[in-house]
């Protein structure tokens, strides 16, 4: 599915580079369910952003479905991303001005999907996540767990092959967390590749592989 070769990421702080990721080599096969763990500030989110093409690596090569992402232009990369990846944020990142329905619909609009088709797809996912009753509410009118659900629904609406989730259960109570993990498990069974960042051993256990990050390096 994807392969990272010698990926590094640094920021220039006060004139000299501070490494956040150092020489990361990692490959993930289709159908895997990977959990990334590590202490706060170890670079988990950064790694996930690079996999999700939201951010560039400072150095190294990234292949996604046999394509050399690091050589692609912004436009092509965006196209690739739209087609294949769904992203769930730690802080939900819903658009406050849009309703639940519109939030979920947005990725489809950017993929130029016809209105009638969009309607069917959104209705489908609202149903599946059991949030039909909430579709006309605004994000501020939802609880944290409900917002996270909407965030996941939005990430899945375009039927991505790869789901990247940054602490999807971080703000939820354990029961809600469990429900989401069950959902992921089910998705993975349906063939979606999943990479999640988590602090919880229990949630990590849902995955088929665990990667530990420490100070920007993968611990073997």
């Amino acid at each position, binding site marked *: 599915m994807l392969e990272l070769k010698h990926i590094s990421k640094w920021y220039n702080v006060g004139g000299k580079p501070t490494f956040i990721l150092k020489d990361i080599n990692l490959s993930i096969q289709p159908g895997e369910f990977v959990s990334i763990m590590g202490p706060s500030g170890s670079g988990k989110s950064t790694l996930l*952003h690079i996999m999700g093409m*939201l*951010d560039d690596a400072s150095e190294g090569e990234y292949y996604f479905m046999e394509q050399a992402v690091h050589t692609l232009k912004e*436009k092509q990369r*965006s196209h690739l*991303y*739209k087609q294949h990846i769904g*992203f769930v*944020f730690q*802080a939900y*990142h*819903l*658009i*406050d*001005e849009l309703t639940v329905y519109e939030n979920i619909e*947005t*990725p489809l609009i*950017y*993929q130029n999907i016809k209105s009638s088709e969009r309607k069917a797809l959104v209705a489908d996912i609202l149903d599946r996540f059991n949030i039909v009753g909430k579709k006309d509410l605004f994000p*501020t009118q939802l609880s944290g767990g409900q917002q996270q659900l909407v965030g996941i629904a*939005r990430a899945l609406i375009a039927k991505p092959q790869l789901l990247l989730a940054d602490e999807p259960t971080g703000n939820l109570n354990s029961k809600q967390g469990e429900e989401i993990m069950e959902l992921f498990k089910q998705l993975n069974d349906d063939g979606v590749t999943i990479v999640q960042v988590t602090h919880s051993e229990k949630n990590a256990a849902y995955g088929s592989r665990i990667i530990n990050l420490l100070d920007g390096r993968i611990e073997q």
Partner: protein
Amino acid sequence: MIQNFLKVAWRNLIKNRTFSIINITGLAAGLACFILIALYVIDELSYDRFNEKADRIFRINADIRFGGADLKLATTSDPMGPTLKKDYPQVEEFVRFYTASGSKQVKKGDQYIVEADVMHADSTLFNVFTLPALHGDTRTALNEPNTVVITASTAKKYFATTDAVGKIIEADGTPYKVTAVIRDIPRNSHFKADFIFSMDNVHYDWGSYLSHNLQTYLLLKPGTDWKEFQKNFRQFIDKYVVAQARQFMDISNLDEFERAGNKLEYSLMPLTDIHLHSDRLSEMGVNGNIQYVYVFSAVALIVLLIACVNFMNLSTARSANRAREVGIRKVLGTARDSLIKQFLVESIVTSFIASIIAVGIAILLLPYFNSLANKDLTVGGLLDMRILPFLVLLPVIVGVMAGSYPALYLSSFKPIAVLKGKLSTGAKKSTVRNALVVFQFATCIFLVIGTIVVYNQLRYIQSKKLGFNKDQVLIIDDVGELGNNAAAFKNEILKLSGVSSGTLSPFLPVPSWRNDNTMSREPVLDPKSGMNMQTWTVDADYAQTLGLELVQGRFFSKDFPTDSAAVVINETTAAWVGSGNVIGKKIYNFESQDNTPIPLTIIGVVKNFHYESLKQQIGPLMMRLGKVTGMASFKVNTSNIQSLVKEVEKKWTAMAPGRPFRYRFMDESFNNMYNNEQRVGKIAFTFAVLAIIIACLGLFGLATYMAEQRTKEIGIRKVLGASVQGIVQLLSIDFLKLVAISFVFAAPAAWYFMKRWLQDFAYRINISWWVFAVAGVLAIVIALVTVSYQAIKAALANPVQSLRTE
């Protein structure tokens, strides 16, 4: 307490530097513009008010229609003033000016200087107008013939001292004794005069009630109702004017004259109205125009308002950022009115800083503004006691005006809502703010349309087929100086290479001499067959030199000795004479001693040409062959005009030694007729640009703010796959909608006002649709460029960075 307000206000200004700069720049520009225009308006309104008896002084205007042509005169007949004083006790005094003889050549050493600001006046001048003397006694100064009163600067110019009483001045060959030196006539007087000569030296056919050649002013006794007094004029007309006309015309009274579709009407015009409300033939100088005062004032207020709108918009937009402060203050128990005060102090401080900068800008721009408005305003005018207090109050007024809405808006926040963060949505969608942006852009679009229409009309004037050819025509003034040598001079010039033809006539289709005369279609003169028309004396080469086109018959020719009793008329006159071929028909004038009709045979009809400004319809005109040599015009055809002019000057000095050589080009003279319109164009353009800049400044601030507010949303949308283009569109579309709405308001208003402006011109353009298209597109492009900088910046931002800041 106030100290605390000031401290917080200052900190806020510093903290939000970008917004403060935008606010202050915009306000300063608006205020500078306001100050300049205030100076202008005050100056325009001050005309002639320096006269102590200004409220009792009136000029007599005459409105005459005889056979179609309407004449609006600033002059009246010479006996009218004295007769009114004799017959009506309400008239305390009268004074007449005579300026029809034009400029004079005044001798200084062995040089002659052409002095344009000269007039003859009755000795009563100084009883009516307030013109204090420095030397001599103005009460008796003009009692005798060959006397002259001069101004202080004229005295200095000719005698190097102001005390010139008793000295002799030679003007147009006549010696005059200086009997008094007066202070320079104030700039804001509707007449300018450096020399005031005795009326006794005017060569004039005195005593005719039918010729209107003198400006006449009445000083009415205190308490006289001037509107009531005007009603006596009909009685005056029947008693004197009609009585005199009866000598050669079949007429019994004014009513009969009017029934035939004619008009003779006298009216009084208050002295202080002359400068702004009078645009008649034979004015004492170029007057102002109340329209321009209105337009200028409106523009000043609008620009100031636009600047204030920026202020309000940015302050309310920023309110979300300040909401927390408000919330905390409220929770701490601050009363609402104290919050309002805090915000007002902030906006007053801002506008105070802006005012100081504005005064600086105004001083810097004054020279440019002077040339724009054709004025000599000085910075000293700002210290005028009528402006100064206002100038000090202005920052407070503007501060309150611009600050009150944000103050009320911000202080009304509910603390809980604010602290819960519910406010941001509301702050993003403010109807009031949108309305303000619409107002700004509507104004800009209005001004742009106005500018385009004015310039189009000016271009139309330039390119209009005038019926004569104004290009490459050199006009020599004062050819009358040459006396009998004028024809010889013309022949000499024609010998020069590059000169293809020439004509001797002071009657030209640009400002020059005019002469009107009453003609009749019948051998008798009565109100029905009479027609007042321009009567020009020309020579046989006139048509060729000016490129006039003949539609019937022929022009004058040296080969036809009988042409001295012939006339060439224009199409307007031809239509009055009769339809179809009018060659051979006769028209009559009554200028002979015994008023017997003199028949003149029509030998040609020239195509109508615009001998007056395009503001006027082409009136009736007839030309006669003769020798009136006030000016000479030459059609030239050379690439080196300057060297040709030098050669002409050489010939001139040889034939008229010591006499100043004055020349001009016909196309220049023509363009000068539209100086006022050109000025309106420049003003509209300048203020359109100014308004657009200020509005854009505001829009830029708003866009900055919006982009800032929507950083997170933009980040998410990018993550969800939005393209840069899509984001830019998203951010710009709201502003574009506002611009579109502005257009809907501005276009009809501009159409209506510009239509009215064009009414001034008898010959005018239609306002075509593309003018609106251009203005609309321009507004959209400008708004887009302004907004897109921020939009693109936001769209290009790394979404991960944007989202991290949450």
